């Protein structure tokens, strides 16, 4: 009850504060800058929807007859399965690591987040190579050494895709719920226990409901990622909207069918995003201040070692097995004559070149996205009105634009409006910026929200105008927060596959593209060095973010 009162008081106070701030005049240059950013991000979407709507009627009819229903069920089924899987796995792991006496907690806390450094499709490559019926490493090994004809479950199709994506996407939910478990008020649970509930009942009736808003947001982010996923589903032969769009783009001259399918995908994604934004807005009001103290860990007793086995199995499947297999392939590639020659040639052009391409394109995208996010975030946080909030929400449509869709809209745009951009790697960077702008906007908003407006007011009272204050006071002060946003954009851009694949000019390959091209041809030893290098590069910003607790 007391909490409720505190919550409503906090809410009232902030609303009053917003009204006070809201009376300030919007700085015109800032507003124009934010408008330009929102236009940049929203143009591909608008153009795409226009193309879908104006596509020839017979293309619509052909797709409606043959593809749309099947794709819709496939996509929604996978989305539901992976979202459910990641929530169960993510919350369970977070609870074990944060709230129990699980052995080795400090190590697991880190290891369980590591899958974020590896693109899911690389995990899928390893998974297929290991488990493929008849041809896989595991069935072959069993047949040759033990004489056992074990075929195991097929790594392909719906279950294979759901399994792989759950394994590589649970960290979103895991990190969000781990943070929530850490911040959870001990007194809430103690009250439940003192009223006679046992530990299980407390978990279900008190702890999880408190986690729900954050969890829902995490789950919806997973859902959006599943919609956008291309590499994994294509490799595992499960056709979703994203894979079908890619197929249309590589199989047809006519882009209108791809535009229609993209329109369908974006409508689903926008619906998910709208729910997520709505929940985010609500979640803010439910945060409660108070006297935080850590809750004592829950003894697992007999479940201690089974729980340990679960956590170990997840780490084994997501980190140790893929890295070991990739390392073995790399070594095999280095020892085998023809493959070494192939690698050598690649290195001559070379592996370093691909690394360089990956780093500069992701780095430039990170810098641009964060720089562009500042005016939008600043307006949304300091001048909260429907216009500024709307702009901020508009900048989040990138979440609803899968890589293939961004690529398609940029292909169409550069084709009609901006032919000069055609054939430049800058288009790839632009795709990263559009696609990952939401992460930058959210990070910048979070950083700004923590900065007291009084500092800026002091600057203004000394006669500086808003723009000057923003550049000389605000940005330097929130620089660490901006850096975290940049690290996040850098990490996701590094792992990006479909847009890069479709937009890359001749001769411009990134590490992710190299891995994909080689793995798609079944040339695993050639794919492995680039895959290891990519994972290593992605681990750097990930470690930075984990240390800051900003993921």
């Amino acid at each position, binding site marked *: 009850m007391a909490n409720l009162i505190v919550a409503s008081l906090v809410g009232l106070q902030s609303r009053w504060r917003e009204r006070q701030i809201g009376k300030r005049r919007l700085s015109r240059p800032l507003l124009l800058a934010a408008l330009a950013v929102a236009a940049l991000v929203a143009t591909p979407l608008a153009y795409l929807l226009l193309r879908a709507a104006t596509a020839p009627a017979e293309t619509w009819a052909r797709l409606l007859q*043959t593809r749309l229903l099947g794709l819709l069920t496939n996509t929604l089924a996978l989305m539901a399965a992976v979202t459910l899987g990641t929530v169960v796995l993510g919350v369970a792991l977070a609870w074990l690591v944060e709230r129990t006496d699980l052995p080795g907690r400090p190590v697991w806390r880190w290891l369980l987040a590591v899958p974020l450094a590896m693109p899911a499709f690389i995990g899928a490559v390893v998974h297929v190579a290991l488990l493929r019926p008849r041809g896989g490493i595991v069935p072959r090994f069993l047949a040759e050494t033990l004489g056992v004809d074990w075929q195991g479950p097929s790594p392909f199709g719906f279950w294979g895709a759901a399994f792989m994506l759950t394994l590589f996407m649970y960290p979103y939910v895991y990190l969000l719920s781990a943070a929530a478990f850490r911040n959870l008020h001990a007194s809430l649970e103690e009250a439940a226990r003192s009223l006679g509930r046992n530990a299980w009942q407390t978990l279900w009736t008190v702890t999880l409901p408190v986690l729900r808003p954050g969890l829902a947001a995490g789950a919806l982010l997973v859902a959006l990622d599943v919609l956008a996923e291309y590499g994994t589903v294509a490799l595992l032969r499960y056709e979703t909207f994203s894979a079908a769009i890619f197929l249309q783009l590589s199989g047809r001259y006519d882009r209108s069918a791809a535009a229609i399918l993209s329109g369908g995908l974006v409508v689903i994604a926008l619906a998910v995003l709208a729910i997520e934004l709505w929940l985010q807005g609500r979640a803010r009001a439910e945060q409660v201040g108070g006297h935080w103290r850590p809750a004592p860990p829950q003894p697992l007793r007999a479940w201690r070692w089974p729980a340990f086995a679960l956590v170990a199995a997840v780490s084994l499947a997501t980190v140790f097995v893929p890295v070991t297999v990739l390392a073995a392939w790399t070594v095999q590639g280095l020892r085998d004559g023809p493959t070494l020659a192939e690698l050598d040639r690649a290195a001559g052009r070379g592996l370093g070149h691909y690394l360089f391409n990956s780093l500069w394109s992701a780095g430039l995208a990170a810098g641009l996205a964060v720089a562009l996010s500042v005016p939008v975030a600043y307006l949304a946080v300091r001048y909260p009105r429907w216009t500024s909030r709307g702009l901020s929400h508009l900048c989040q449509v990138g979440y609803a634009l899968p890589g293939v869709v961004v690529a398609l809209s940029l*292909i169409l745009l550069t084709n009609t409006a901006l*032919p000069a951009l055609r054939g430049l790697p800058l288009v790839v960077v632009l795709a990263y910026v559009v696609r990952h702008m939401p992460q930058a906007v959210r990070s910048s908003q979070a950083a700004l929200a923590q900065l007291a407006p009084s500092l800026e007011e002091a600057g203004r009272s000394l006669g500086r105008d808003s723009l000057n204050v923003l550049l000389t006071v605000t940005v*330097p002060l929130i620089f660490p927060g901006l850096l975290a946003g940049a690290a996040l954009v850098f990490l996701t851009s590094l792992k990006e596959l479909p847009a890069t694949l479709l937009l890359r000019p001749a001769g411009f390959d990134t590490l992710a593209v190299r891995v994909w091209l080689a793995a798609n041809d079944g040339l695993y030893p050639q794919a492995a060095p680039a895959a290891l290098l990519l994972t290593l590069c992605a681990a750097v910003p990930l470690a930075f973010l984990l240390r800051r607790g900003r993921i």
Partner: protein
Amino acid sequence: MPALKPFILKLTLVAGLLAACAPTAPTAPPEPGAAPAGDLVLYSGRSEALIQPVIDQFQALYPDINVALKAGSNSELAAALLEERANPQADLFLTTELMTVQKMANEGVFQPYQPGTPDAVPADYHHPDWLWTGLTLRARVLIYNTQLVTPAAAPQSVLDLTKPEWRGQLAAAGSTNGGFQAHVAALRQLIGDAATTAWLTGLSANEVQFFGGHTDVRKAVGAGEFQVGLVNHYYYHLQKAEGSPVAVVYPDQGEGQMGVVVNATGIGVIAGARHAAAAGLFIDYLLSPEGQQLFAELNYEYPVRPGVPLHPEVQPLTGLRLAAFDVVAAADSLESTLDLLETLGIP
């Protein structure tokens, strides 16, 4: 604000560094007559593994020319070329069948280029005005796993693949693959639309596993994941060279049967190409005895140039019953073929 200056300086430095790293736009075309140098942009429907060795040899001859490769499907790259007509990005387009180059020639994407040795290409295998040139031939064959299928039981016609005994045992490259697209277009001429539709429906009913490319098909058949695959002939040799238990059937050789379908790879110079001179050198190299020999030796293909020896393991086309179809007509039916594949839901 003393802290601001270093901060802005840092920002400027970072931005400057990043901008310096970004490759710049391609420069203006070189003076005519200048020694060929610079980036030669090649769009290739052949996968990178099957073209890179030839590019490497070319670059050894012409170290000043840097070949920038974009490999993809024929149709994906053709779509890009059509969009780029006003502002061409590529110098050359190489395809795995002739329908697409013929279609591009019709659309005005190519400029004529007559190779230095025009006799190297038989008249059937180049455009009458040299808008495209054939490079190598490949036969559409059946590969099967000898541990799972006996030679007597192996299918002898592509039309056999719809028989119920092969249900769940077949692999093929899907509707984005140029070789498969061209094969279907050829079948429409050879056996008619109704029979082709029935054949494709039969493949779907037989749960054929369609892959993005033929490498997957040969590997899956080699590993025994599938018993039979529909591929170009050299994929059989490539898989055999890896030590897999595989054998090949050149299908439809019986009396009254249509014969084996043979495609050619083709190449053309893009109209408005920035490096047309270098592009010509590249084509000349591919048609030279050395270039043709590379295709024959490394990739078991049939050289288009008469007199270049085949790889000893490759069955010569002479003496085989070859399917008779018209490339120009097939090119005109390309889009309706793609529509057909899509309507039937071939992935």
